[in-house]
């Protein structure tokens, strides 16, 4: 589904991604871990098409298409979803209205008829149960005055509504208490299918207790320096990132 080859990217002339290689297949959950500043969020942003980042090398293929050629909205319509680390507020625009536009934009791209108001509201009802989000929240301005937990839940709710092929969760666990974390993670798990894939970007292992990854990758200094199964996350939890850092410094194989 997603093939990243030797991806390099800069921001303000500074190289952040220094040759990323990653392949994600349908049905898989990949966790990308790493210390602060290693390039995790940059990778998520570059995949979503944020234009502050300049891609300087490499290729990204998504469902057989050149992802880097596409505008951010085309990527979204093709089925890439980014759950933001810091979801933005849009005053005066209700989540409901926002999502109605988004859902129908994506449906149009897939050659489907737009949903009418009734069908849309039914879909909202169904999906809001998945992430245990309060319906009244959806009538309010998008993310405005939402708590940190409500914002993250709203991200996962949007993911449920848009039914993406590939979801990228960027530090979705940050700022969540343990109950909210469980609800959000359960939502993600329920949305998992054999057709879609998930990339979980996280600093801590605890989210991975709920969203069990098939693969764990350690990103450090712009490169994936170690990959493994879910047990790698536990190892990182126990030992921290320092052993990885020093191993990279010494230039030895990890």
């Amino acid at each position, binding site marked *: 589904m997603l093939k990243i080859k030797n991806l390099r990217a800069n921001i303000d002339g500074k190289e952040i991604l220094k040759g990323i290689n990653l392949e994600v297949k349908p049905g898989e959950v990949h966790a990308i871990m790493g210390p602060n500043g290693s390039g995790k969020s940059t990778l998520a942003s570059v995949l979503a098409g944020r234009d502050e980042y300049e891609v300087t090398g490499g290729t990204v293929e998504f469902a057989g298409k050149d992802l880097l050629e596409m*505008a951010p909205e085309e990527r979204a319509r093709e089925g890439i979803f980014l759950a933001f680390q810091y*979801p*933005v507020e*849009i005053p*005066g625009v209700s989540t409901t*209205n926002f999502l109605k536009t*988004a859902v129908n*934009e994506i449906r149009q791209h897939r050659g489907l008829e737009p949903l009418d108001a009734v069908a849309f509201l039914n879909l909202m009802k169904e999906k809001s149960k998945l992430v245990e989000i309060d319906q009244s929240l959806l009538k309010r*301005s998008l993310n405005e005055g939402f708590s940190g937990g409500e914002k993250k839940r709203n991200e996962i709710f949007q993911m449920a509504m848009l039914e993406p092929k590939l979801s990228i969760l960027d530090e979705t666990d940050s700022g969540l208490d343990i109950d909210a974390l469980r609800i959000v993670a359960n939502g993600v798990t329920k949305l998992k299918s054999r057709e879609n894939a998930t990339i979980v970007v996280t600093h801590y292992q605890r989210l991975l207790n709920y969203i069990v990854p098939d693969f764990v990758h350690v990103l450090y200094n712009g490169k994936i320096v170690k990959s493994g199964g879910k047990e790698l996350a536990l190892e990182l939890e126990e030992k921290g990132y320092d052993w990885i850092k020093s191993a990279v410094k010494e230039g030895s194989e990890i």
Partner: protein
Amino acid sequence: MSDSTKILEEITGSDYKYGFETKIENESAPKGLSEEIVRFISAKKNEPEWMLEWRLKAYKHWLTLTEPKWQNVSYPAINYQDIIYYSAPKQKAKLNSLDEVDPELRDTFKKLGISLDEQKRLTGVAVDAVIDSVSVTTTYKEKLGELGIIFCSMSEAIKDHPELVKKYLGTVVPVTDNYFAALNSAVFSDGSFCYIPEGVRCPMELSTYFRINAANTGQFERTLIVAEKGSYVSYLEGCTAPMRDENQLHAAVVELISMEKAEIKYSTVQNWYPGDKNGKGGIYNFVTKRGICMGDYSKISWTQVETGSAITWKYPSVILKGDNSTGEFYSVAVTNNYQQADTGTKMIHIGKNTKSRIVSKGISAGKSQNSYRGLVEVMKRADNARNFSQCDSLLMGDQCGAHTFPYIEVKNNSATVEHEATTSKIGEDQIFYCNQRGLDTEQAVAMIVNGYCKEVLNQLPMEFAVEAQKLLAISLEGSVG
């Protein structure tokens, strides 16, 4: 010698006579402004002597005035002798139904998306359409007539209801009020008149569409709305103009009079041609709008969505004379490219316990300049007057300007006056967030802007709100790279 000059000579060479109009073949007055032109317009319109006198008084006063320069806009000097002050579409017979309207004219309406027949059928909006200077047709007049409501063109009102026009015209905006009001009073060609009798709630939105069609014409419409004791009316005004290279002048006057416990709601969606991307052409929209809350517990509410015009200069105001009366002003002003807007309101508190509320949302894009200018004045006698003002500015890009000029004058210690102001930018973050959900940048901007303006758009009647939302999106097209 051209026909029009001949006619002009005939008019000026003889005393003014009623019924002269039938002899005139031409539809336009020659360029320029003079006493003769004022007489010409009055004669064209078969006006009674008192109306002509009124116009001449205004014209003579206008001659003593100089164009105001205090507003925060700049434009080359207007040559008032290079403007055609009267231009009528080629319509002769009086119309009995919509079917008699010139098909080409109806096409124009259709292009504007306001097919009269359709509006009539679907929305039940009564429309008084003004193209250039003459009211083409007024719908629903009969139905309204049953309730005693008068809704007609100003020309008809002068003919059919002279006592009402005489009593109220110029009482809120006197002919001597300001440069453009004086000009309008001298040369106004048509407009709408609306009278709601005591205790009547007007069952439909009354609507007027103005459109400037011919080249080099100024449009000087005059609107007068009187709501008697305990009555209610909601009035919609929409404006458009085709694209032209040269600048056209639009100097309208609107007067509202709200008696005891009466309410007037006046909504405008102004989409005059704003000029091209380089600032060439466009309408100069210099308008005087004012309402007076004459009676106790009366209310006047202005809502405006201003997206067009090269220059907008207007301050829909309310004089709160009656005790416990309420004035409201809700405004969205969008400027893009080289557009300039200096707009706001005046709330004059005279009566006791009077309340006013101002919500102004400015949006500047491109190289445009957008100013809010508002006066809140509390007079000595106005015990417990309250005002709340909120002025927000939204900037798009880094070459535009947003300015706020609030004036507050309080002469009574019991008054409460609040003013809040914010300035913000549409964030790249917000746009990217929308992009990531499948919306393209134009859609994202439209959505963010509509959200920002929601408080004002909510004040508009339903079908107008939809149109206004679309207009906002169109006006800002290409403003985010």
